[in-house]
């Protein structure tokens, strides 16, 4: 019984702070991860949501990427099929950032309806792995296999 009490005290001494740290850090650093539609419906319901930093996962609209000549500012549009909005990002874009890739942008929606991103992550489904089964029979996938471009 005595040993058990000691185990318990020792456990609480370590796990208590772990739990506290985890709870407080999630509150402070947790970021909403939304689709464009979810973001716009949130904003419609509560305009103060503008001040909350969010992550948005969406697809770049093909042909929408513009680079500010000389500078390092990117302007492009993202969409989830239902909602589309413009994004501006200043910084170095990853190599994978090209037309119609899936991106995750983190930042805030400005009053003018333009999303100001502070980070930009891009990922390409075909990057490290072959396409999912449902795409395999499509002509685009075969074209990709033949080596011309990414599907």
């Amino acid at each position, binding site marked *: 019984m005595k040993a058990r009490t*000691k185990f318990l005290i020792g456990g609480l001494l370590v796990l208590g702070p772990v739990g506290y740290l985890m709870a407080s850090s999630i509150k*402070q650093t947790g970021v909403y991860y939304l689709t464009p539609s979810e973001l716009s419906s949130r904003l419609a319901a509560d305009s103060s949501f503008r001040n909350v930093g969010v992550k948005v996962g969406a697809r770049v609209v093909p042909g929408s990427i513009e680079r500010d000549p000389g500078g*390092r500012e990117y302007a492009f549009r993202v969409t989830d099929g239902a909602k589309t909005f413009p994004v501006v990002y200043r910084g170095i874009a990853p*190599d994978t950032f090209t037309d119609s890739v899936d991106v995750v942008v983190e930042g805030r929606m400005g009053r003018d309806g333009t999303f100001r991103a502070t980070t930009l992550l891009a990922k390409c489904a075909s990057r490290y792995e072959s396409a*999912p089964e449902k795409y395999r029979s499509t002509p685009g996938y075969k074209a990709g296999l033949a080596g011309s471009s990414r599907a």
Partner: protein
Amino acid sequence: MILVGELALWVGLLMAAWACTVSFAGGALQRDDLIASGRRAIYTTFAMVLTASIGLWTALLTRDFSLEYVAGHISANMPNVYVFTAFWSGQAGSMLFWALILSFYSAIAVYANRERNRSLVPYAAGTLGAILVFFLATTCFKANPFTRLDWTPMDGRGMNPQLQNPGMAIHPPNLYLGYVATAIPFAFAIAALVTRRLDADWLGVVRRWSLLSWFFLTIGIVLGMWWAYVELGWGGYWAWDPVENASFLPWLTGTAFLHSIMIQEKRGMLRKWNVVLVVVTFLLSIFGTFITRSGVIESVHSFAQSPVGSWFSAFFFIATGTTIYLVATRLKNLEAKAELESMVSREAAFLYNNLVLVGIAFAVLWGTLFPILSEWVRAEKITVGPPFFNAVNRPLGLLLLALTGIGPLIAWRKASTANLKRQFVVPAATGLALGVLLFALGMGGGYALVTYTLAGFVAATILQEFYKGVSARRAIHGESIPVGFVRLVARNRRRYGGYIVHAGIVMLFAAFAGLAFKTEHDVTLRTGQQFETNDPYGHHWRFVSQGASTDRRANRMVTSVALETFRDGKPAGFITSEKRQYFDSADRPTFEPSTEVGIRSTAKLDTYVVLAGVRGDVAELRVTFNPLVVWVWIGGALMAIGGLIVMWPQAERRRATQAGYVSVLAPARVAAPAVGASV
């Protein structure tokens, strides 16, 4: 050969199923013929999976593009070395690779234990057979590398240029070797639970394999960091990405186990805890493979949504359920044989070490899964990133670092004041002196100062141990310092190998704390233009652009920008960073352009230059000063060396003859009373 390989894969699946069935049956019915048959089936499974693997390698190296896997992962103009590594660069191949390593390990474990641990081996072989069935069935039915296309392309898609890197060629196999090695301790834990023989005999086998797994995971993780650092070009080596976390999790619980096992050997305590750690480490390895393969969690590394996800989930839940049932029905056999006597003792220090390691693992798992959990519970997806992981893990990591110094030196059972004074006065003073010195030199940043104070303390405890050991040898045997040092380590490999690992850990912590002083500059330079700044140590740097040049090499177009650098006015060499565009054999560009980082490394500072792009004669660059990064690689190498010393088998045999230790190789009958005797 390809056809033979495909056939062998299916035969391997049948063999594994046979091994699983007859081994369990042989164990339950005490039938030696069935047990022997199960053993042979494990060997045969390995032979079959090896044949299948040779088949796939043949297909890759002969560039048989009628196979979907070959067409999807390589191209005709790729160097052979990366064609060879393409074996594990895709999903189907990596599943086969898992099965290959697992069947190899299983054959070794079964062979090595054929005379020993006779009551355990059938169940262990059966469990391994079951895991093999899962991996081979998934490979055969869901991710078959031998699947043929209904047409034959002229050329394949090639490999992502970022994967065409020596680090990437050897990082995944190391991780897999580590992941898969956790299956053997798991199998023996299950066997021990089934037979209720939960004394020291299963621990001996398990410790070796856990060490092996730890060794490969360590190398794999550090290589992954190195790859991310030199290839991805974001300026760091660890981003708390789900895939990175997935490799870190079994490492944490495996490390915890390698410490708590000592408590069980010495004192017969923590028996339930150890079984749970072994099982959890294996489950986390499966989970890690699953995460990297399923696309369940949003990750930059994310692989496409894959068909093997549901199979993995099913396997995961079956394995978890079985273990929970076995542990729950055998709690009585897992009662501790001794009680914790004092909170100031080695047992207690190891207990804290375990709690911290598992605490970190839990926090990392929680953060990794949080987007999924929050979506379930609150119907909104909330992600946590590096700020969360840093906030939680910094204090925990520092606590762990402190324990690294305390644990090995504090007395067993109950530490006396004299023991504490003798062991800790000098190291504590050293650590504090270092902290004060750095503060006086003007180092800011609270966490960094605490880290260096603790690092000084731990380093001093390690040096003190080596000093004491070598002095003792000099006094007794009259050996010179180098001879004494080598013999000291050779005669006590487990102890001093462990200290070497700890020295590596100290270096890693010192390097991590250095990141607090990292600085970044985005610059735009025309040919001949220069950029001036100060590094974190206050040295003045000048970078002069030599302009962009473009040239064509083997299968890629390379745009490079060289910067001539001057440190405090003296030339410090050129740093060249590149953008590469790869081409396929028909000269069409493949993949997005990739970045090749320019790094100038010294012990104190990495100067890290990334070429973001070139327009006309304007080069856009990011210059990062990364203090102390080299120590991550040196510390990692030291950990691997220490691990190797601890694993070296001869030390075990010699130890087995020493009194006072629970022998790990002696038969169970001898070992069991030894545990009792030491209580």
